[in-house]
């Protein structure tokens, strides 16, 4: 509920408004450039504001499997938040594999350990989640989500680009399921694609930074599978637009798709969560 109220920061000060920043390059440089292109991290994180970063670190896999967000992308964003004056940056995921292993294997805890004020947490206990109603949900009526995002923390989603055996792709929208306690019911009780769109009406990240430095184009979400290297960071405030662009950058399972062809993205678009046609987006492109 609190998240809904926070809304998105206005674009007023940006000279030219871009929907997306698509930067090609090495993880650190590209992430920095993407943040800059989106108006700088200070557009999203004000001094004193606490931040939740939501990478994908759900699997105890090393970064080369591309099942988890690149640790350097996470660390770069975390560093930027701290520099913007955030006293507390929590890197949070509700992991599928054992928490300790995920923290260890993904390299994300290591990458962030020297940044003061940044804490990497893998949560696997219900007490760290709180129920939120989903008034606009079609199938999802309520969900238990990570407490902090209900308590006014800024939310920045940092998903990895990967295929998913149930939802086609797992990018930003699907990644938000990692803030939910009961994921099983998404798979067994609901139409998972609709449930993801419903969840998107209550969890609204201020910024989505899609790590497409590598993309797991088959065998997702856990891998192992085919890893391609698009070398891209895609950032934007519109979660549907970021994902939709992410769908277009590589063939998934050997086929080219558009955002509209991804069921959960289409459902999110129909819920009014963002733009889905990428040719109508203003995209800032650069190679660093």
């Amino acid at each position: 509920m609190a998240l809904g109220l926070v809304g998105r920061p206005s674009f007023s000060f940006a000279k030219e408004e871009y929907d997306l920043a698509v930067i090609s390059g090495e993880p650190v440089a590209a992430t920095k450039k993407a943040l800059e292109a989106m108006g700088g991290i200070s557009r999203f994180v004000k001094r004193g504001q606490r931040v939740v970063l939501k990478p994908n670190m759900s699997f105890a896999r090393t970064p080369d499997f591309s099942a988890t967000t690149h640790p350097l992308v996470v660390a770069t964003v975390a560093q930027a938040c701290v520099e913007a004056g955030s006293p507390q940056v929590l890197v949070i995921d509700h992991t599928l594999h054992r928490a300790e292993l995920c923290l260890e294997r993904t390299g994300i805890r290591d990458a962030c350990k020297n940044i003061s004020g940044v804490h990497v947490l893998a949560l696997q206990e219900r007490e760290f989640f709180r129920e939120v109603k989903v008034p606009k949900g079609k199938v999802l009526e309520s969900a238990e989500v990570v407490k902090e995002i209900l308590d006014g923390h800024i939310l920045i989603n940092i998903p990895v680009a990967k295929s998913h055996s149930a939802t086609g792709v797992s990018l930003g929208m699907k990644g938000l399921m990692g803030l939910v306690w009961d994921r099983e019911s998404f798979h067994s009780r609901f139409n998972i694609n609709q449930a993801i769109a419903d969840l998107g009406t209550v969890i609204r990240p201020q910024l989505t930074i899609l790590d497409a430095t590598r993309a797991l184009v088959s065998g997702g979400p856990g891998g192992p599978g085919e890893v391609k290297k698009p070398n891209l960071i895609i950032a934007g405030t519109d979660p549907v637009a970021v994902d939709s662009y992410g769908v277009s950058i590589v063939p998934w399972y050997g086929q080219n798709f558009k955002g509209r062809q991804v069921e959960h993205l289409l459902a999110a678009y129909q819920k009014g969560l963002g733009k889905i046609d990428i040719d109508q987006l203003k995209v800032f492109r650069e190679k660093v």
Partner: protein
Amino acid sequence: MRKIIQGLSLLLFSAFFVLATYKLPNWLPADIYLRLDPLLGLNAVFAAREIIGRALWALVTIGSTLVIGRFFCAYVCPMGVSIDFLDFLFFRKKKRLGLKTETGLRRMKYFLLVIFIVAALTGLSLAFLMDPMSLLTRFYTFFIFPLALTLINLLLDLLRPLFEALGWVVLSHQHYFQSVYYMTAITLLVFGGIIVLNRVVPRFWCRHLCPLGALLSLISPLGVFKRRVNEDCNECLKCQKTCPMGAILEDPRKTRLPECIQCRTCAKVCPQNAVTFPASLSLGGEYSKVDFSRRGFLYSLAGGLGVGFLALRTPFALKQSKHPLIRPPGAIPETEFLRTCIRCGECMKSCLTNTLQPCLWESGFSGLWTPKMDPRLAPCDQNCNVCGKVCPTQAIRSLSLEEKTHAKVGTAVLRKEMCLVWAQNKICLICDEICPYNAIVFRPVEGYRRPVVVASKCNGCGFCEQRCPVQGESAIVVVPNGEIRLKDGSYIKEAKKLELEFKPDPGDDKFILEESGFKVEERKKGEGSVTPKEKPQPKKPKGFL
């Protein structure tokens, strides 16, 4: 002094116990106390009928006992420390019930020792029942460890508001994974029983029952240090009353050498300072004091053979090659496994995911407390190989991660009548999603893409069984079929020989996609076969429109 050494020993035992996790470095022998135990060593060597490398550590204990005497019980044995400590806590001020005919009961431990050794010779590992090291490790695993986790988490929960107020982020989100085990209650009862026996006499267990104590007492009179009482003795009998082992005879100048554990309590309490423990090389005539009747020996001999017969001549033994249990990866062939495993529970304690659980009767009496995997509860993690690392008798072999991956524990079998996809045409791909080896693929059947297990890629880790969303029993279960159990040699080689491939194949999903969908459907149409009545065959991977 003795209390400090005892305390340190228990601390060390506990520290090794705590350190037995998947992070255990290869050089650290977390199972050292169990390795040092000569009874467990003898038991495993006799039952398995071969020399076990790690059991040779027990020679250290044997050697030092030969030199010093039965000091192990008083200074090292963590069970002894626990008994002493809990005795101090509960029974210090209580009047003991006492025993009238002490000597008769004392023989019990020798009878038990003979029973265990004879049972081991028949191929039955039985010493675990009463071996103090095995008993205590088991008690730690099944009771102390889960209890400690509960208490720590409770404390964390209580202090959470404080941590939050202080802004201690990590602590305020700290929560330890709660391991749970079957048979916690039984284990507690056994240990509790041992402690309660102190109500009768101190160290009742050590005096009368402990088979390891019996083994050590047989060689301890050879030790160098022996109790000696000089002429200052005024026969006040203080030493005799305080001796925790009852090792001092009616004549306080005489000692039951096999029973003396060199704790030197007698020297401390003697008002005359008449008791010393000088080094002496004389063997002394006290060997005859080992109270052991010929009849008792024969009875226990018969007992060992009898137990061996009862436990081994059962249909369970005949079915060992078809046993229904999923054993830990690297477990040696079932018969040898049962003979070698000493049921200490160390593997179950260290198991990263908590999938290893003790057996009750699943494989008969001879399988009591042996570890099995419970995949519905938790899977076996591919980044962990600790169960073998901590196994003191190598009933579970210590394997590199690569080798362990190839130590196939079984094969997943899909029960189509329960599977949401097969039986109800629902969209569910959790088993495929979670499988670390891409051993589950989707094939078009009757117009639907349905999960199929590729047996040659499945190593039985159980992720699918654990995650299957079907209520109650899983629709996909791991069965021991296809398990690889090797006594020695490489699992990788064996797996290659069997044409198994646990290395993930990245191209597989793509292959399935291209091979599925269109082609099959079009071929069907061409043949004029019946098109599915329900939804048409999806032409794209799941989630795409």
